[in-house]
């Protein structure tokens, strides 16, 4: 197999605490691969470390441990200059279209700034490039000289995406890019993400709480719990049958837009939401797991389960899971 575009190995980010408390193990040993052109969803409990993981991959936080390789190059060992070259190839879209654009810059200058920084295109061509970018996100030329406050939330998010596309990245990291938008605009942006992927062969690392959107956009989905990945599977498989008990709880809590449907509830989740300062022993999910008793000899409490392949296909493992329960994945619902 060819080198993955992104190779994350045992990545960890711990934040020191004040006052002698234990460190916050926001991300604690995450490994996964992302192939070129692939779209990987990242979901999980609020506070489980999704944003921190994304920020560490992007080099916005220094890892406490582990490595990130982009196209075979180790990001930890790069010189400033090579960093700049790599940064061109991985871009980010944040949740908040309001906070992420400079209110004093016109759209033209927002879109050409990355080109100037990286010395791309002749000055005269940059304007044309900006127009092409606007067009790619479904905005017309009349918007070029307007300022962020003159746009609706959806339009601003499009501008944020256009800016991220300016350097023709191969990887777009999106941290909840849709949650500030209303439904009709969300649908437009979801379709835009799908289209951009088809047109430019972009790979996505896509963080979202809306699992229906993730299903629409992602080939594979990684489920995180307390700083670690507990399950990665191809979307079709995962949505047809969530494997890990946490994934099941998560999926059972999805609200369905139908008032006749049963009220969503997090099936069987016991006890308190987890705290990354106090990682439980063994499997971090065991105090809340509805099925921990099924495993003999309190193994879930004593021993952390490894992330192991459960089902293979042509691309490698179709489902990987960290759970002591019987080689399920096929377990009954």
């Amino acid at each position: 197999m060819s080198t993955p575009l992104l190779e994350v190995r045992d990545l960890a980010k711990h934040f020191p605490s004040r006052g002698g408390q234990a460190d916050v193990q926001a991300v604690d040993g995450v490994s996964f691969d992302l192939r070129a052109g692939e779209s990987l969803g990242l979901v999980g409990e609020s506070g489980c470390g999704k944003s921190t993981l994304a920020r560490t991959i992007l080099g916005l936080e220094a890892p406490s441990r582990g490595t990130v390789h982009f196209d075979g190059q180790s990001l930890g060992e790069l010189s400033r200059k090579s960093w700049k070259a790599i940064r061109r190839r991985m871009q980010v879209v944040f949740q908040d279209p309001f906070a992420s654009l400079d209110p004093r810059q016109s759209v033209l200058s927002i879109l050409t700034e990355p080109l100037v920084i990286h010395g791309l295109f002749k000055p005269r061509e940059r304007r044309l490039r900006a127009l092409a970018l606007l067009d790619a996100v479904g905005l017309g030329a009349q918007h070029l000289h307007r300022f962020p406050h003159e746009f609706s939330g959806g339009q601003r998010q499009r501008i944020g995406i256009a800016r991220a596309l300016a350097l023709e990245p191969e990887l777009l990291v999106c941290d909840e890019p849709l949650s500030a938008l209303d439904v009709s605009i969300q649908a437009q942006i979801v379709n835009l993400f799908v289209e951009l992927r088809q047109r430019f062969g972009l790979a996505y690392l896509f963080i979202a709480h809306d699992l229906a959107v993730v299903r629409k956009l992602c080939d594979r989905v990684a489920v995180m719990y307390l700083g670690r990945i507990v399950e990665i599977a191809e979307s079709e498989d995962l949505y047809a049958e969530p494997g890990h008990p946490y994934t099941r709880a998560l999926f059972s809590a999805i609200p369905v837009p139908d008032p006749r449907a049963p009220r969503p509830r997090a099936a069987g989740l016991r006890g308190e939401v987890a705290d990354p300062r106090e990682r439980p022993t063994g499997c971090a999910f065991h105090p809340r797991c509805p099925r921990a008793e099924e495993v003999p000899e309190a193994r879930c409490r004593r021993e952390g389960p490894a992330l192991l392949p459960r089902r293979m296909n042509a691309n490698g493992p179709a489902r990987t899971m960290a759970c002591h329960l019987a080689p399920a994945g096929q377990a009954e619902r």
Partner: protein
Amino acid sequence: MTAVLEVEDLAVSFPSRGKPVRAVDELSLSLEAGETLGLVGESGSGKTVTALAALGLLPRSSRVRGRILFDGRDLLTLPEREWRRVRGNRISMVFQDPMTSLNPLLTIGRQLEEVFECHRSLPRRQARTASIAALGEVGLPRPEARMDAYPHELSGGMRQRVLIAMALACRPSVLFADEPTTALDVTIQAQILDLLGRMQRESAMAVVLITHDLGVVASSCDRVHVLYAGRSMETARTDPLFAAPMHPYTSGLLRSVPRLDDPRDQPLPTIAGHPAVADGRREGCPFEPRCPHAALPCRTDPIPLVALPGGRASACSRPDALRELEARGTR
């Protein structure tokens, strides 16, 4: 049932360089004790402004007309010093943006304690105990340890739960919750919505739930009010609204929600065009430029909210055109 809060013909406008922005236009709604009213609509349709009006938090520059009745008084005429007894106490709000509504320089514990000290006049010690309990109620792990955390040390979802704890601290009669669970994962969302439901049963708190998640509306609202460009498009009980929307905008919204059983390889249906600017145009329907059923009168005639059987109302001059289309199964 008795209404705890009644909004009558509310109109809010903001001066701007051109024509004033008419953020809310002739909006009427009534809220019963213990019920949850969903407020949905396009970005910029006036949801937050409506809530701010009911909390007396609109900027001075705004112009407000209409009445908001609470406890036999019109809140819009309340002097500021009396507001302090109502706001945060009898009527409270969870704000849309958790980062700007917490003070970055104070620990979250201090900020919560202040609520208890000011509104419930608890001494510091008791305020602390009450604050820890309040954080536990919204499912924050290890609430006692979190008391000393600063807002930036919490994840987005944790900050949101702190705000919810602050808003519920005084057991208000009316809560405006502005996108309270948008930043949360679905399990914590379910937990928060359960908590709100429990508080409603215990203390008959009424909730105005502002959200763009129609799944949340379906699972937790008794009634829904659909806004567009500051105007009411449709209002109905939740079940009939989802079963048979009577306004093309509502119908468009419902269609564009991604569902878990959609075909994965087809684009989502969208509502074409861009959200309207609330420019205060009085004639015609504000949704007309994006409406698939629009006809000439939609642009020129006044389109009032018309009462329909079953306690619903819709502001569409061509409800039959919509019904025809729905019948052909385009939903």
